[in-house]
């Protein structure tokens, strides 16, 4: 039974990782750099929802979309203002500037909302029970929300011209350009998609835990582990990778003391980079 309980928690955690990992994987595939500010985009989403839901006391169903749109807008703005200038240079410039952006975004969050730990709904929530499984309604909401967003992303990537062009560019940027694909527009769509999902992931993370300025930064490791597990640059792989990392992290509670479970994604990352650097599904095309 405990295993089922942990798998359920893993599903919740995996939903958050999966949403974050899609963006990291897409930006890596299309722009060729590891975006270190992705975690802080997640934190931005969480705090924007806090602004709408707690500070402005508006309903939560409004806070989530506002957070998603605001985070996507921030991602596009950062690209236009900063990353675009370095597109033609070596990718390491983008990597370093994303590191700088991570620090800036986190500091701004701290400046606006302060360093304290906060929550959307303070107080203890009692768990419900279903056939011996303990769950909270917000956890079901996170899983359902993540699944809905994954379906939207799938439809976008497989049915629309912009989505297909994004996958094409992640596959082969040079050929995309030779085909006459408007690469700057694809880059913008990439930031919109990655930013929107990061915003949602941040809100879900804040629901499941708490808000604090470095909340997103701490998610970078499991999210990169998920993206690499799924084969970096492959959005569908990133989803699977996210859920695997989430489940394995929670299941490790069976054998590891709780304070060590955060090391699990790192261990998976190291093992993957040594033995299967191109991802679990290398050679498979999805």
């Amino acid at each position, binding site marked *: 039974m405990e295993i089922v309980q942990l798998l359920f928690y893993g599903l919740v955690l995996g939903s958050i990782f999966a949403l974050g990992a899609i963006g990291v994987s897409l930006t890596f595939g299309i722009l060729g750099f590891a975006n270190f500010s992705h975690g802080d985009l997640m934190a931005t989403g969480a705090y924007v929802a806090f602004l709408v839901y707690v500070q402005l006391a508006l309903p939560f169903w409004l806070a989530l979309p506002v957070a998603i749109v605001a985070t996507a807008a921030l991602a596009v703005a950062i690209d236009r203002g900063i990353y675009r200038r370095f597109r033609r240079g070596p990718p390491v410039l983008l990597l370093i500037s994303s590191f700088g952006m991570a620090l800036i975004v986190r500091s701004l969050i701290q400046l606006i909302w302060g360093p304290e730990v906060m929550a959307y709904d303070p107080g203890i929530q009692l768990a419900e029970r279903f056939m011996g499984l303990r769950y909270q309604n917000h956890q079901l909401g996170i899983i359902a929300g993540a699944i809905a967003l994954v379906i939207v992303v799938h439809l976008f990537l497989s049915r629309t*011209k912009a989505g*297909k*062009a994004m*996958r*094409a560019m*992640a*596959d*082969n940027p*040079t*050929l*995309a*350009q*030779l*085909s*006459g*694909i*408007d690469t700057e527009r694809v880059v913008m769509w990439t930031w919109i998609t990655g930013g929107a999902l990061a915003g949602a992931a941040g809100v879900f993370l804040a629901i499941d835990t708490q808000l604090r300025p470095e909340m997103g930064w701490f998610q970078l490791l499991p999210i990169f582990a998920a993206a690499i597990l799924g084969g970096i640059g*492959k959005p569908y792989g990133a989803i699977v990778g996210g859920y695997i990392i989430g489940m394995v992290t929670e299941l490790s509670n069976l054998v590891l003391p709780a304070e060590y479970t955060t090391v699990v994604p790192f261990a998976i990352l190291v093992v993957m980079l040594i033995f299967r650097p191109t991802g679990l599904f290398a050679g498979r*095309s*999805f």
Partner: protein
Amino acid sequence: MSLLELDRVTGGYGEADILHGVSLAVASDEIVAIVGPNGAGKSTAMKAVFGLVDVRDGHVWFEGEALEGRRTVDIVKRGICFVPQTENVFPTLTVEENLEMGAFLRPGDLDEPKRKVFELFPPLAERRKQPAGTLSGGQRQMVAMGRALMLDPKLLLLDEPTAGLSPKFIGQIFDIVRAVRDFGVAILMVEQNAKQALAVADRGYVLATGQNRYQGPGKELLADREVAEMFLGG
């Protein structure tokens, strides 16, 4: 009048020039092959058409307009499509999606151009939902050419279309090249398999060290003893 004309083009990718005054021309409905030893600048000459090379001197004319210095998108819009030698498909996209990406600049319904490509390459029609990365080398080359044909180009540039293929497929590819020309598309191709390429081509150019060495109808070049000894392996 020629569709495409390189007029004494000099240029390269950076400091050192690779092309030293290369001239060549392609007329509508013509298959033209560029052959020559390794390092002769064959691929570079073709890439100069597509704006991928710094042209320092000379001109690239297409339908009477200068192409040098233009953006890739502009060149594609004018009706030139390029099939690179390697990595010329999107491996995780299906065959059909690969074709759609070739028509990115084309608004509206893509059923008609897709139908034409499937007619030209029947094996692709059965595999339209299959990811291009799972296809054989020959079929992948068909996807690559099909993608380039989706915009109804006037000129198709092929960079070593038979590189790395088994002899069985090489013959197939050249058949395809002929079929594409019969669709009304001019073809400029760079080839290592010089003999077969010249046999298919209406005209050929032999380049060496970034300069024109011989030119003429494909069959004449094949029959030329000097060319054969120096460049076609006897």
